[in-house]
C-alpha cells in the first residue's frame, strides 16, 4: 500500500472516530445521518462481496432482516445482552445464507439477480405471516444496548433515548471492522479464489476449486455483516416490522455501491455517504430526489461504469500523464 493510501486511510479514520464525534457530539441530527450512512455503507459493502464472485444481489436486505429478527428474539425472548446477540445475529444470518445459498446460486447472472428480488418479497411476506416472529406488527420495545462496567470503571456508557453518540461509536466501530476484514479478505488467497471464480469459473473448477462452495461462502460472509447491521438497527430504532426491510432499500444498496464504484473497496462507502448527505441537503425538495437519483445512476452506468472512484482514478492517471508530458520548469 502506498504512503498516500496509508495516510489517507488514517486521516479518514481519525475524522470519523475522533473529529466527527468531537465536533458534532451535540448535534443529534448530524450523528443520526452519519449512523445511517455507516449502516448503508456496510450493507453496500456486502453487495460488493457478492459481486466479487460475479453476482449482483438485490436481496441483501433479507440478511439485514434476518439479523434484526434474530437479535430481537435473542434479546426480548431470551434476555441476552446486545453485545452477545450482535455477533450471534451475524452468525444466524450467515447460517441462513448458507442454507439458501445452494439452491439459489444454481442460477447465474440476470436470473440470479431476479431471484434475489423475488426472495426479498417472499421473505417479507413469509415473516408477516409468522406470529412467533411478530407478524405484521413486528417487534417493539427492543432493549437498548446495555452499559458495561467493571466495578466503578465504565467501559461502555448507558445507551438512552436522547444521546446518539454511543450508537455512533458502535456503528463506526462496526464499519471499521467490516472494512478491515473485507480488505484482508480481498488480499487473501480466498479473495483471489473469489476473483478467479468470477473471471473464469471453468478454469477455476479444473484447478480443484469448488466454485459453488465459494459462491455460497461469499454470500454467507456478506450475510454476516448485513446481519450485524440488522442487529444494530434493531437496538437503535427499537421498533421494526416487516415493511421496514423493503426491496427499495435493497436496490439502493446496489445502486449506491455502483455510484461509488463497485470495483473498489471504498466505492460503496463513498457512494453511501455522498448520496445520503445529498438527500439530506435536498431535504425540503424531496420529490426531486427520485429524478436526481435516476439521472445519477444512468449517467454513471453510461459514462463512468466504474463509479465515482474510477473518475478519481482517471484524474490521478491524468495527473501522472500530464506531469510526464508537460515541460518541467527550468527547461
Amino acid at each position, binding site marked *: 500500500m502506498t504512503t498516500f493510501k496509508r495516510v489517507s486511510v488514517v486521516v479518514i479514520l481519525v475524522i470519523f472516530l475522533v473529529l466527527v464525534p468531537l465536533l458534532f457530539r451535540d448535534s443529534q441530527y448530524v450523528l443520526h445521518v452519519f449512523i445511517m450512512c455507516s449502516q448503508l455503507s456496510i450493507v453496500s459493502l456486502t453487495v460488493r462481496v457478492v459481486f466479487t464472485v460475479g453476482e449482483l444481489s438485490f436481496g441483501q436486505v433479507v440478511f439485514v432482516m434476518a439479523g434484526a429478527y434474530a437479535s430481537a428474539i435473542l434479546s426480548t425472548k431470551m434476555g441476552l445482552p446486545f453485545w452477545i446477540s450482535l455477533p450471534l445475529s451475524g452468525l444466524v444470518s450467515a447460517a441462513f445464507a448458507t442454507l439458501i445459498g445452494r439452491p439459489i446460486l444454481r442460477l447465474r447472472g440476470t436470473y440470479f439477480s*431476479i431471484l434475489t428480488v423475488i426472495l426479498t*418479497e417472499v421473505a417479507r*411476506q413469509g415473516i*408477516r405471516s409468522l406470529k412467533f416472529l411478530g407478524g405484521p406488527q413486528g417487534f417493539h420495545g427492543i432493549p437498548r444496548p446495555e452499559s458495561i462496567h467493571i466495578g466503578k470503571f465504565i467501559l461502555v456508557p448507558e445507551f438512552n433515548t436522547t444521546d446518539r453518540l454511543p450508537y455512533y461509536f458502535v456503528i463506526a466501530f462496526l464499519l471499521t471492522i467490516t472494512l478491515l476484514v473485507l480488505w484482508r479478505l480481498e488480499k487473501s488467497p480466498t479473495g483471489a479464489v473469489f476473483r478467479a471464480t468470477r473471471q473464469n469459473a471453468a478454469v477455476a473448477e479444473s484447478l480443484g476449486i469448488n466454485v459453488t462452495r465459494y459462491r455460497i461462502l461469499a454470500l454467507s460472509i456478506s450475510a454476516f455483516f448485513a446481519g450485524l447491521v440488522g442487529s444494530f438497527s434493531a437496538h437503535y430504532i427499537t421498533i421494526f416490522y416487516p415493511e421496514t426491510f423493503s426491496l427499495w432499500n435493497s436496490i439502493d444498496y446496489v445502486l449506491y455501491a455502483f455510484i461509488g464504484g463497485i470495483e473498489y473497496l471504498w466505492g460503496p462507502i463513498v457512494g453511501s455517504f455522498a448520496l445520503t448527505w445529498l438527500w439530506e441537503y435536498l431535504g425540503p425538495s424531496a*420529490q*426531486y430526489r427520485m*429524478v436526481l437519483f*435516476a439521472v445519477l445512476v444512468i449517467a454513471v*452506468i*453510461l459514462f463512468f461504469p466504474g463509479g465515482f472512484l474510477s473518475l478519481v482514478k482517471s484524474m490521478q492517471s491524468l495527473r501522472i500523464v500530464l506531469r510526464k508530458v508537460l515541460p518541467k520548469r527550468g527547461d
Partner: protein
Amino acid sequence: MGEFAQIVINGLIIGLSYVMLSLGITLTFSIRRVINIAHADIYMLGGFMAYFGSQFGINYFLVLMAALVVLGCLGAVLDTLLFRRVRDKGPAGPMVLSLGLMYLIEGVALLAFGEKVKGVPSVFKGVIHIGSISFGVERLIVMGISLLLITGLFLFLGRVKWGQAMRALAQDPEAAYLQGIDINRMSMLCFALGFSLAGAAGVLLTPLFYVGYAVGSTLIFKCFMVLVIGGLGSVLGCLVGGLLLGLIEAFVVAYVPGQLAVLIMFALILVILLVRPQGLMGRGELT
C-alpha cells in the same frame, strides 16, 4: 359447479391480464437478454394516457393506438440512446440502467401527475350472464383485445420475417449476425414491441384498476412471478405462466382466507424457485 367455473373464468381473465402485462418484459429478455425493470412503468405511462384520454374525451381505441405507437417509439429511442451503450458488457449494466430508468420515469411521473392514484372510468358498461357465470362487458372487451394482440405477436414471431429474425437473435446472436440480421435494427424493434405491449396493457387494464406514479413498482413483481413460473426467456412460457398464475391466485383467494392466501402464493413461488428455478419452460443458466 357454477362457482367452480366462475373461479376458473375469473382466474383465466386475471391470468390473461398478467400475460398482457408481462409479454413486453419477456420479449426484451428472451431476445436481448435484458431485464427491463422499468417495464411496468411503461405500463404506467400507458395508464396515464388512458386517464388523460378519458379526461379529454378521446376515443378509447384512438388512445390505444396512440399508446402502441408513441410508447413503441419511446422504446426504440431508449434502446438506441441508452441500452445499446451497455450491450455486451455483462448483465449488470442493462439491469442497473433499467433501474435508473424506472426511477426516472417514476420520478417524472411523480412531479407531473402528483402523488394520488387516479381511476379511469369504464368506457364499456354492463354485465353479461351465461348460465350462472357472469362477465363484465368491459373485461370481456379488454380480454378480447388482449387476445388479439397476443395472437398478433405470436403470428409476428412465427410468420413475419422480422419476427423470425428476432427469434433467431434470441436463440443465437452470433449465428444471427452471420446470417446478415441487423442486430441494431432488431434490437430497436424488440424494445419498441416490448414497450408498446406494456403501454397497451396500461391502456387496457388501468380502467379495471387504477394508476399512479408508483404503480410500476408494485406490478413489476407480478411480472417477475409470471416469468418465474412460466420460464425466464420464453414467450410461450409467459403465456402459460400468466394464465397459471391467474388460475392459482383465483383458487387460492377463493378458498383460503386473507393473509394465508398471500403466504401460500409466495410459498408456491419459493418452491418453484428452489425446485425448478428456470420455470416451466425457461432456459435459465443452470450449472
